[in-house]
């Protein structure tokens, strides 16, 4: 079984990015997978800003990253890039924190003109943490998301299908490599 971690870097509450991740998590559930969740917003701000990795809540979050086989990382697009809040958490991770792990980046933004921020701003940061694989990301327009109340999640059918497809493909890739890693050697 693959263990997933969903990480939200949105400072808003309620948040469209969080709603997007929850939608993705439900889709994972339907496929029989379990997923844990971290919202950077819930972590102690002072410890985060001082990069205090001795704080118990920060240690728990770092342990959750360590335990996960695959991460879904969500960020709102701010100023044509990832949010500063998401980055404060990524800044705490050890240099090889994503070694052996797969990552699916998801972004929400107000304009499709900033779609490439996933590949030009976020991807190099993720790549620097030495993941096994960074899957093609998905960008969802904020107008295609409902952040609270009934219908919370992806409201646009095309966007929903696209995200669910990306999640399914990510699950398939994450589990294949997982099993191929544990496969006995030919000579065994």
């Amino acid at each position: 079984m693959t263990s997933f971690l969903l990480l939200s870097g949105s400072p808003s509450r309620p948040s469209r990015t969080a709603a997007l991740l929850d939608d993705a998590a439900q889709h994972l559930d339907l496929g029989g997978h379990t997923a844990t969740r971290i919202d950077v917003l819930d972590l102690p701000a002072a410890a985060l800003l001082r990069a205090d990795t001795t704080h118990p809540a920060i240690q728990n979050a770092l342990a959750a990253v360590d335990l996960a086989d695959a991460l879904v990382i969500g960020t709102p697009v701010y100023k044509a890039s990832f949010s500063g809040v998401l980055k404060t958490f990524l800044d705490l991770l050890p240099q090889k924190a994503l070694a052996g792990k797969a990552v699916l980046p998801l972004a929400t933004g107000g304009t499709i003109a900033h779609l490439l921020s996933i590949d030009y701003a976020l991807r190099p940061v993720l790549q620097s943490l030495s993941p096994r694989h960074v899957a093609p990301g998905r960008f969802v327009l904020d107008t295609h998301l409902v952040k609270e109340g009934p219908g919370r999640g992806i409201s646009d059918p095309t966007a929903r299908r696209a995200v669910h497809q990306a999640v399914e493909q990510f699950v398939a890739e994450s589990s294949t490599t997982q099993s191929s890693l544990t496969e006995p050697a030919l000579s065994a």
Partner: protein
Amino acid sequence: MTTRIAVITAGITEPSSTRLLADRLAEATVRALGGPSAASVDVIDVRDIAHDVTNHVLTGFASPELQERLDLVAEADALIVSSPIYTASYSGLFKMLIDVLPKDSLRDKPVLLGATGGTARHSLAIDHALRPLFAYLGALVSPVAVFAASEDWGSTEAGRLGERIERAGGAFARLLTGAPAPKQVDPFENVTPFEALLADVTGAA
């Protein structure tokens, strides 16, 4: 008229090489502008207002202390920034301050970029992370930026970092004053004509 320079520095360690780079870039710029009578410098150390920045990100409201700094940035004639490079990009704290800058507060503003890192291997983060961010903000980014790796501060390399800082300050001052770049030495200006070279070989003329 004095040039008002705002400096944003986002190092979190104490002492901070990011802060040191910011100060050195400001000094070099002031020197190139003609000394302390030509320019004033206001330093905004994001570490001092980290809590206010966080509250602004979460609630959308600026404390008076933060507002004062945001106004300094908006009203400055020029901005110098210095961020540590973490995971191949600007730090989260630095980006949080950028996230709360009012829209258009950096439009057309001349900006000098500085960044520090543990290794020269991440030098390109200036051109691939910081430069696009300031392009989006509509700033007029100076062509010469400075990346200072830990080893650059060491005794043998210190002179070279000093040269790079002076060069960046000089280029930034020219951007601010509209002064032309110093004339490049053209290695082909006084070249021997090709015919003369040929004449040597063939013995003609």
